[in-house]
């Protein structure tokens, strides 16, 4: 069984791309292939035009990666850990020290000199981010970056991602939490069972996953709700004093005129859009979480 199957995806420069999918859907495998940890059995991955499989070193020099469940050499301090990784980029000692100092300040670990074995989950994540930014990468991959963080940590991380986006970096991050993706992404992709099922802006994905282009209109009136016979109505559910109408377009004006003509006073007339979360849960989890 393939963890990822015929996945085709492209992310534009400067995008903050949220990769959304339930646990086990293939998010980590996809990122693993993009950062050169896993060799795809078929197909190719490119980062800024560089083939990751054929030219892994060139790809690694322009990417940064924050994995889920990151670990560091426990006996070394944050600075020592980063110093070790910096050597692979051929940085001079002075340049490496300056970059490490800057990054540790950036992620809020400046002045922390204890070995990383005593780090909390949040500190480890922040150090992981510093590690991912060590080479000032053009593209940053983050696998479930806010997983297990406290609310303050989550907010800090969101701000950092927005800040990186502001600096023109391309951020590709995965999550199984829709709210997380919704908060910081400019575009999203939804993966399920190893296949991309939707890709685009939040609205585009919602519409695509919804599966139809019908507009749902909620009508509430004083007294009994009359039957509506308007062109454009596909279906309608009538209740005592209300109706939910599905139409091919937004026909609230026609509904209003028809009810006025029938001397029915309108209390509420609005378009109800299904949220991305509703669509996501229904599509990916089959509505089980509703």
């Amino acid at each position, binding site marked *: 069984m393939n963890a990822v199957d015929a996945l085709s995806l492209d992310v534009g420069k400067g995008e903050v791309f949220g990769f959304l999918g339930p646990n086990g859907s293939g998010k980590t495998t996809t990122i693993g292939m993009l950062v050169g*940890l*896993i060799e795809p059995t078929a197909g190719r991955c490119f980062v800024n035009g560089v083939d990751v499989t054929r030219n*892994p*070193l060139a790809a690694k020099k322009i990417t940064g990666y924050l994995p889920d469940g990151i670990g*560091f050499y426990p006996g070394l301090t944050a600075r020592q850990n980063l110093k070790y990784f910096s050597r*692979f980029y051929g940085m001079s000692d002075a340049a490496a020290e300056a970059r490490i100092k800057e990054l540790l300040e950036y992620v809020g670990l400046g002045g922390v000199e204890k070995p990383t074995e005593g780090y909390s989950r949040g500190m480890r994540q922040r150090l992981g981010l510093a590690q991912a930014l060590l080479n000032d990468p053009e593209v940053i991959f983050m696998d479930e970056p806010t997983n297990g963080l406290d609310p303050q940590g989550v907010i800090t991380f969101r701000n950092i991602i927005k800040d990186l986006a502001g600096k023109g970096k391309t951020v590709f991050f995965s999550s199984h939490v829709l709210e997380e993706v919704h908060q910081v992404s400019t575009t999203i992709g939804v993966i399920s069972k190893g296949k991309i099922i939707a890709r685009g802006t939040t609205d585009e994905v919602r519409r695509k996953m919804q599966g139809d282009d019908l507009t749902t209109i909620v009508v509430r009136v004083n007294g009994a709700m009359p039957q509506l016979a308007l062109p454009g109505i596909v279906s309608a559910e009538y209740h005592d004093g209300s109706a939910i109408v599905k139409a091919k377009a937004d026909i609230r004006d026609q509904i209003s005129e028809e009810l006025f003509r029938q001397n029915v006073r309108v209390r509420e007339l609005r378009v109800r859009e299904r949220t991305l979360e509703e669509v996501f849960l229904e599509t990916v989890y089959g509505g089980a979480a509703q």
Partner: protein
Amino acid sequence: MRPELIVASKEFRDYLASKRFLLLFGLLALLSIIGAVSGIAEYNSDLETYNSNLQQAAASVGGMRFFVDMPSILQIFSSYGSYIATFGMLLALSMGFDMISREKEEGTLKILLTHPVFRDQVINGKIIGAVAMMVIVLLSTFLAIVAIMLFFGIVPAGDDIVRLGAFFGAVVLFLTAYLAIAVMASTISKNSSMAMLIAIAIVLVGMVIPNISETVADTVLGPAPEMTVISAGNTTTVGGVTQSQFIAFDASNRTQGGPPMQINQEYTDYYNKRNQITGLLNILSPSQDFTAISEVINGRLSSVGSIGAGGERGMFQRISGQTVSVWQSLSSVWMNFLALIVMIVVGFGVSYARFVRVDVR
């Protein structure tokens, strides 16, 4: 700096910071020094006995030939050899069993591999770092013993220096073989506990190989024939296989004008075959290889001794007073050297092949 050397220097520093490594190294160093001091005391005692015998021989009327050899300074290293075979082996295993598995467990491997370094450079660097550290450990203990010898006024001669060099090479190969086994276990295991278990299992198999080889030889060849000694036309049947250990000494009587002796061909053929079978199987055990090489080099022997039915080692091929060159000694154990080299190549080869394909996520 080349990525291999970056990894190697990190590995090297990690060992220096590891309490486990320092403890075992300290223990090995301490035991080596104690072994050297006791070895020197024993050597001096043997030398005194030898000189005393020489004086007695010179004083006796008509002279008399003594078959007591002059003690060799190589015997000072006999304790060191046994400590290497035990604590050294433990040190090599401890250096390798979590080399890769620890990085997998701690999640550092997937970080390391996303930086600009090839997988083969990582494994090569780790192996270089570990082997370099091991060579330094062995060299430091070895030179400490040499320094103690010099302090006590014992200076190795030309032949001794060559033999010491060969012995040091065997020590390095022996421990590198166990390091390779441990690294292989670390690479193929999902965690360090499993790696340790696999490494211990391989070591235990190596330890029981001599017993297995005896059983296999006995099963293949059946019961041993009786030994018949033919001396000056008289035939004497000697019961018990362990008599074999006297054969070499009896045979030396020929050079002294003693009665010509002969052993029935069937008996010698049986034990020649038996020794071939056990020798062939025993080379699969690094410890047996090291023991054989050590005995031949340090005992100035021309071949490895056969093992009697009771497990005792005998028949080391050197007659008292005979000079055996280093080359003669080494050429008799080339199979053991080759076996150690093959184990190193296979161990590191499997580690390499597995590591470059391991799924890191």
